């Protein structure tokens, strides 16, 4: 059967990152994402971005898919920055702390070095976050994610919901496809050239009724199957997919620890000596 997956792996891959335990993957991802969120310093963001790109390359992903998504994200992001500029052309003054005019398009619309710098940092930060997420999603299986989340003390019932969702997405997609075909054969025109958007939306809603009913049937069966095999029995749970630590896990454990310390230091310092301007800029500070 054809299993269409976007980036989600069901089987673990073979590269260095793939072979790490779910625990390491989840922890590393979380600490890196936290670090990124709290910083506006390009001296940290840029090396991280390069690191993430290297990580992405190391996974040997399907580049056609990656470029498709990346292209879309870059466009949306640039458009977003453009809108920000339209609303507030001198944005950089507030967050970077200067207004060096490079060009003047009208009385209101100016291009300043600081605003451009801010946009550059913002863009880099966003791309770093996005590529980090992409690396995370492509290198982890849903089972490892459940195990990883459990390792950071999230209740296992929630962890299981996460992996179950991934388990049944293909089944539900198939149901949806079947229902759509049967209703098309009964006379529904889903061809975009022949019917308007509103009609098509209404018709897609019709498909939902049988889809929900079939999904409920399924949910009942799954719940029984889980009860029968003792799901929810104890307070603790172990994970089949959570294999023994590899060398990679052992190396990364202190790294994660250091990152946590760095994060805490950054946050504490930010509280004690809040910077005058949010974004570090080489020609201002």
């Amino acid at each position: 059967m054809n299993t269409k997956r976007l980036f989600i792996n069901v089987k673990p891959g073979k590269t260095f990152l793939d072979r790490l335990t779910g625990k390491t993957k989840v922890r590393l991802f979380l600490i890196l994402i936290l670090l990124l969120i709290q910083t506006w310093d390009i001296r940290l963001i840029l090396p991280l971005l390069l690191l993430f790109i290297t990580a992405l390359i190391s996974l040997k992903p399907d580049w056609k898919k990656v470029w498709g998504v990346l292209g879309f994200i870059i466009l949306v992001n640039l458009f977003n920055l453009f809108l920000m500029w339209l609303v507030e052309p001198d944005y950089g003054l507030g967050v970077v702390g200067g207004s060096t005019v490079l060009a003047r398009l009208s009385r209101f619309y100016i291009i300043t070095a600081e605003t451009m710098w801010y946009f550059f940092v913002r863009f880099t930060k966003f791309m770093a976050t996005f590529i980090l997420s992409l690396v995370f999603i492509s290198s982890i299986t849903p089972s490892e994610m459940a195990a990883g989340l459990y390792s950071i003390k999230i209740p296992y019932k929630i962890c299981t919901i996460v992996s179950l969702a991934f388990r049944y997405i293909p089944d539900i997609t198939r149901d949806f496809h079947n229902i759509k075909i049967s209703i098309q054969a009964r006379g529904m025109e889903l061809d975009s050239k022949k019917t308007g958007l509103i009609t098509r939306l209404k018709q897609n809603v019709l498909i939902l009724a049988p889809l929900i009913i079939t999904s409920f049937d399924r949910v009942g069966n799954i719940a029984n199957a889980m009860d029968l095999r003792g799901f929810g029995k104890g307070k603790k749970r172990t994970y089949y997919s959570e294999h023994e630590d590899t060398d990679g896990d052992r190396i990364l454990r202190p790294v994660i620890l250091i990152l946590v310390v760095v994060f805490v230091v950054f946050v504490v310092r930010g509280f004690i000596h809040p910077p005058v301007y949010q974004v570090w800029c080489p020609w201002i500070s």
Partner: protein
Amino acid sequence: MAEPVIEFKDFSFRYKSQNADTLKHINLVINKGEKVLILGPSGSGKSTLGNCINGLIPFSFEGEIKGSCKVAGIETKEANIFTLSAHVGTVQQDTDAQFIGLSVGEDIAFSLENDAEERSVMLEKVELAAKAADIDGFLSEVPYNLSGGQKQKVALAGVMHNGVDILLFDEPLAALDPTMGNTAIDLIDRIQREQERTVIIIEHRLEDVLYRHVDRVILVSDGEIALDTTPDELLRSDILKESGIREPLYISALKNAGVVFDREDHLEDINTIDISRYEQALKSHFETHRASLSNPVVSEEVILEVRDVSFSYESVKALNHISFDIHKGERISVIGKNGAGKSTMAKLLCGIERPQEGSITFKGTNVLELSIREIGKLIGYVMQNPNQMLIKDIIKEEVELAMVLNEYPQAEIDANVESVLRMCDLYGMRNWPVAVLSYGQRKRVTIASILSLRPDILIVDEPTAGQDYHHYTEIMSFLEQLNREYHITILFITHDMHLAIEYTDRSLVFSDGELIADDNVFKVLSDTEVIRKANLKETSLVTLAEKAGIPPEEFIHAFIEEERRIRNEHETTVH
């Protein structure tokens, strides 16, 4: 010394939402190491009985319990499902939904994970269980790539850990083709013998379960135990005829020939019956019926022509140069194992997929130039699961939906829908909500909703999947009537051999994308080569005929005609 592991004492159960007891005054003892078949039609309470043993009742299905039910010495209403699951392993009917893990290994490990077992121990136990269930070597496989039979093995392996001593199988044959079904029954048998576990099989397909020995059959009817005896004793009696269970075909054939069995006969296996004792009776009975055998009259009019059609999914060849004709009013069974190409063929006929080569012509019109919607008016497709087709809340609205979507004038819709509702015996119920209907009634509504467009050909996908003999007969008689009275051509996609033999005249058999047989159904199903390739199994009628020295093809034919006559007489006396 017999040691009871399951004991029901004057046990009754009523579901919370119902006002009558589903199980009434059950008294039943099952001993350690026994292999027991719980037999009964849908709605008889046999699954409810199973759920009382594994603890789903009262844990997941609430209701009122009277009397006592002890499993492994534990009073179930005082225990919880987790204590019981340490003693009872349940393999459910839906092989797909009970696959919880994202890989075979993970699914087998699920209950061990819940026990918070150390991973190193877990790996060993998974390996052990996988070996016992004959699924080792697939541990890293994902569910989407497994067949129904393989998923069932995984489910079995997943409930065998830690010395679970009772294994409960809820309709293990429902989702499997005949060959896979045999494999499953074989595996259950082997596990019971080698590991000395108590095995309980809940099924309505008696003949298929009896492929391997069972110690005892418990016949459940209307929430009560109608009979608790050995298979031989059960088969000797005439109780099956009234209970909505299909008697093994060889038994029916022998009984039809006037044979009365005695204590000498070991009836549960056709190979242990001394046929020579009854050869004379069978032969003379056959000869009297042989003369009146009639071949179905096939109309000259070809309504669908399939010529040299080939189709591939990406790079996998699904159909290879297929050609056949369909005449008006024919009843055809399309058979073959999963992945053989039969569903693909149906999709091509309905326009869901388009062939890469070849042509499909409907009464001179090239179907390949029409849209799915236009083809829908010529060829109707009834899906296996009615819940995937039902959209509206009220029966009448559901039936008229296709005509509304096709923008027919209201007057025509009203007239047509009324006649279709009457055809399908739904007119009296036309304003009922769909939600209150039984599975069989839902099926009938979906067929009505397709018929409203007046297609000339109806393709019905597994019309009887998961149905017991009574409901099966009901659906099939209805379809037969549509064919007889309204001359609708029907194609059945199925791997149910009884259905093919009893309700169709011609079979198209697919195997690995090739059409390997296209002939009279009796001929096709007595051809061992075709049977093997299509994952079917030889019907016991063929075995019986061969043993008695009667040509199998004609013997099956005579048997089916006789059964049909008996059924029709029965129907006329009922009405």
